[in-house]
Structures are given as C-alpha cells and as structure tokens.
C-alpha cells in the first residue's frame, strides 16, 4: 500500500523533496535494519574521525601551544601565535621549503600537467600502437615515489650514474643543493605526467564525438577543435586535474625523503613537519604550526574539488 501511494504521488513534484517522498516506500525500516544501517555509517565514520579529522583539529590546536611533547597534556600552555611568528622569522629552513614547494608546484603545473594533457590528446586519436605508447607513459604511475627515487639514483649517482658516465661531469645530482631539487623534479615529473595523461584520457573518452564532428564540419582544424570545443567541455576534468596537481605537489614527500630526508636543498614543508616530530628535537607546537600551513592550503583546494565533484553528483 505505502509503496504504491508514494510512487503515484511522486511525479507531481519534481523537486528533491518529492524525490525523497517517492522512495519512502522501500526505505521504511524495521528495528534491526535501522541498527544495521547505523552501524554501517557509524563504524567507518568513527575510524575516520579518530584518525583523520581529530588529528587535523589537533594539529591546529597544538600549533597554538608550547608543548614539547614530553610533559603531560595538562602542562600545555597556550602561547598564541608565537609558533607561527617563530616559523616565519627565526626558522631558517622555512622559506626555502616554501620556495621549493612553490617550485615543485610550478613544475607540475607548467610541465607535468600540460605534457600529460598533450600526450593524452595525441594518444586519444586513432593511431597505430596507441595502447603500447600509453602503457609506456603510465608505467611509472604504479611505482611508489620512493622507488622512483631509487630508480633514478642509477642515473644521477655521482660515481656510478649514467649522466656523469656519459658526460664525464662530477656533479652529485642528488647531493648538490644547486641541482638536487631539479633532479628530483625530473624524476617526479616522469611519474606525474603519466598520471595526468591517464586521468585526461579517461576524460577525453567521455567527450561526445558529435561535438568534434560538428567542429570539423564547420571547418575547424584539430588544434582549434581541441582548444575551442574539447577543452571547454572538459572543464570539470580540467579542474580535477588542477586540484590533483596542487595536492600532489604538496604531498611530495617520499621522493625527497629517500634522497636525503629533505635536507640540503631539498627542504619541503612536509619534511620539516616530519623532522620536528620524529627527529631528535621534537618540537610539537612548532611542527604543528607548519602542519597547519599545509592544512590551510589543502583545505581551500579540497573545498574547490568537492564543490565540483558534488555538483556533478546531482
């Protein structure tokens, strides 16, 4: 009875409230079912709150305190913005780290992402062997960034590396602060390009082919078709790729950590946080201030990302 009633009532109201009413028929739950659903939501949510959201809030709160990590939690004193002031003014690696993060972002944004998109556009057309080319370019995506660091060591090593073997130079590509950031970036770009290509290829497959044909009939060449027709309709994918570019460059940690634990030219905000927690000197409040910087930047981006994704959902 309830099912049929709800169903016949539905079409009259097309808004979201109407949609809910329409399904109430099979959504009416008994006691056991209700319990099951509550458990299905609560268990994963609690895990997430415990290990993600609570720590995120914790980082922000700790950043306003002077906790040294040794005394009990009750000994914590709030010291306002002092940690932030210290980070910005008297912590030597901070500004280099910011600079390196920005360079990392710039290289991902200006090299890896356009290159990945370029390869995707080339490989999306009917060409002989496109699958083989795709496979070659996204092979590095399955390797961890830590492993990427080790693999490139064979190319960069001072005494045994390929570059120095071929050119006869004696540059320590991973060790010399003038070069090591760029060396790491080449290796990271090698992986990131494949990732972007993969995402973009999937997006291109979703573009309505009749759009391209219409453009072709109107006399557009391939470049015009891409920039004036395909690229604009891919707006959601473009923004997702953009957000992933920024987030991945914030997360660039594994690679520099395996090279030299993020010192001597390879400082990143992420490595500074880690050094302040697991290193010899554990400065909790200080490290938390650094962590909060990362949180703020990523939260803004996540908000953008979620807006787009959620809009797509409706």
């Amino acid at each position, binding site marked *: 009875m309830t099912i049929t009633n709800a169903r016949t009532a539905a079409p009259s109201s097309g808004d979201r409230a109407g949609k809910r009413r329409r399904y109430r028929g099979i959504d009416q739950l008994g006691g056991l079912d209700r319990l099951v659903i509550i458990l299905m939501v609560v268990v994963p949510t609690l895990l997430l709150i415990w290990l993600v959201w609570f720590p995120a809030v914790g*980082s922000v709160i700790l950043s306003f305190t002077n906790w040294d990590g040794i005394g009990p939690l009750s000994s914590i004193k709030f010291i306002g913005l002092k940690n932030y002031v210290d980070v910005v003014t008297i912590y030597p690696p901070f500004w280099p780290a910011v600079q390196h993060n920005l360079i990392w972002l710039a290289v991902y944004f200006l090299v890896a992402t356009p290159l990945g998109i370029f390869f995707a556009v080339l490989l999306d057309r009917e060409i002989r062997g496109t699958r083989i080319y795709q496979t070659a370019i996204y092979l590095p995506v399955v390797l961890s960034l830590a492993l990427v660091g080790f693999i490139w060591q064979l190319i960069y090593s001072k005494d045994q590396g390929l570059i120095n073997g071929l050119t006869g130079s004696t540059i320590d590509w991973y060790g010399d602060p003038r070069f090591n950031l760029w060396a790491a970036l080449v290796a990271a770009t090698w992986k990131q390009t494949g990732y972007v290509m993969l995402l973009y290829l999937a997006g291109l497959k979703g573009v309505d082919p009749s759009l391209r044909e219409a453009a072709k009939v109107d006399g557009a060449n391939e470049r015009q078709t891409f920039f004036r027709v395909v690229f604009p309709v891919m707006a959601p994918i473009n923004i997702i790729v953009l957000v992933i570019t920024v987030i991945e460059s914030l997360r660039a940690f594994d690679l520099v950590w395996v090279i030299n634990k993020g010192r001597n030219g390879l400082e990143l905000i992420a490595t500074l946080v880690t050094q302040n927690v697991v290193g010899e000197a554990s400065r909790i409040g200080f490290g938390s201030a650094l962590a909060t910087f990362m949180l703020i930047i990523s939260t803004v981006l996540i908000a953008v990302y979620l807006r787009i994704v959620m809009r797509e959902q409706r």
Partner: protein
Amino acid sequence: MSTSTMTGKRTTATAATRRPLTAGRVGLQVFLIVVSLLWLFPVLWAVINSFRDYAYTAQHGYVSFGGFTLQNYVNAWQQADFGRTLLNSAIITIPAVLLTLFLSSCIAFVVARFSFRFNLVLLGVFTAANLLPPQALLIPVYRMFRSIQVPFWFSDSGTLLNSFWGLIAVNVAFQTGFCAFVLSNYMKTLPREMYESAVVDGAGVLRQFFQLTLPLCRPALAALATLEVTWIYNEFFWATVLIQSGEKFPVTSSLNNLRGEFFTDNNLVAAGSVLVALPTLIIFFVLQRQFVAGLTLGSTKG
C-alpha cells in the same frame, strides 16, 4: 586526414591502417616512439644494471656491455631481508585492502541506497579525508599511537606505534574516502526496482547489501582492489614514521638497508628496486584494465 572520422567510430584499428601514410603521421609515430622509449628508459636501465656485476661496471664504467650476473638479486634478497619484508607488506596490505573495501562499501551503500539528507555531506567528509596531506596529521596520530596501550598479544610493542594494526588502521582511514566515493557512484547506477522487489520478497538491509549490491559491484570492487593493493603496498610515509623496529618494516621502506653509510652499490640497489617493483609491475601488466578503471572511475562518472 578526415576520412576515418566520417564513420563516427573512434579507436578502430582498421580505420587507422587504411589511412595513407603522410609525413605528419610518420612524424607523430616517430615522436611517440621516442617519448615511449624515453619514459621506459629509467626502468629498463635499472633492470639491465641489476643483472650486472659491480666489479665489472666499476672497471668498465656503466656505459659498457657485459658482466651479467644474478648475484645482485641473491645479495639484495639477503641484505634487505626481502623474505621477511615482503611478508610484512602482505600482512599490512591484504587486511588493509579488505577492510577498506568493506567499510567503503558500507558507506557507499547507505549513501546510494537511502536518500538521507546528509549523504552528500557524509561523502564530502570522507572524500576530503583522502586528500589531506598525511604529514599535516602526523603529530596527533603519532602521539595517540604512542600513548594507546594495547595488550601484548595484539602488538608486541605494547602500543599502536610500531604495530601492524596501527599502520593498517591509518591506511584504511585514508583510503576509505576515495573508495566510498567511487563505489557510491557505481551503486547509484544500480536500478532501484531491484531493491523494491527485494523488499517485497522480505529481504532485510543486510541481505540486500550482501546478496544484491556487493555481487553487482564486483567490477568496481575488482578495479578498486587492484588500485588499493598498489597504493597501500607503495605506501611509504606512514610506514616510515609509525614502524620503528627493522623487523616490521614493509618492503618499500626497507630499501634503505641496501644503501651503505658511505658507499652504495648501485647495482645492488637496482636489484632491490626491481624486486620491490615486481608485485606492482605484475599487477600493472596482468590487471592493467582494472588498474586504469579504478583510477579513472574516481575522476569521471563513467
């Protein structure tokens, strides 16, 4: 140039072969071949040198040919204790992937099946968690794990720090968001009438979940499982900071054992790298379709 697009069919091999070879096409092929070789080169270089004797390459230089041996693999296996670390990786990865898939299926099912008012919010909370930089959460997680006492039968370190369970929990927490998002999109495409007839037949929520939804989600689950095995196997940061005793390190973070303090045998490192990469490379070549599907399901709706 445009003859084949007239059919409206893309990605057909026959259309491509029928096309005349123009200078542009040849140029494109040459360009792509060069790019592909360039991209494959670092991996190939590591593989080739992993089979070479260090003494030989030291004498003749790396730009030479010869000195092939399997000894690096034997040494790497022993020196980095790969037997144990690979087992550790399995102990961490398998439960973590299963738990991730199960918990995210639960969330996705509720979000997709019931139109609760907050399901978008819920999904947002989960997806955002996947994108936060883990380093930003390190301090509280590290401190919590260190202070949480657990029985010794659960973890021989007495706390969640330096325990497989702690690492598994963190991995699950971070990966659930992405999987929940992908699965909920997938589950929304399942026809609602199916649930209606299930309800009419008297099936409760549990039976609907286990006997209807999960079996129908098999393709998505397979794709995500492939992707998550790769990601959690590759996970480096949490393993490095949360595991402290050498005998518990998973394989990715044990590679450092192959690097000496003052001297590094790169051929040995290469052999170790190939061994570490092997499981993911097998996944890549055998389950490529699943891997790509998993990655792209998240970014597009299809």
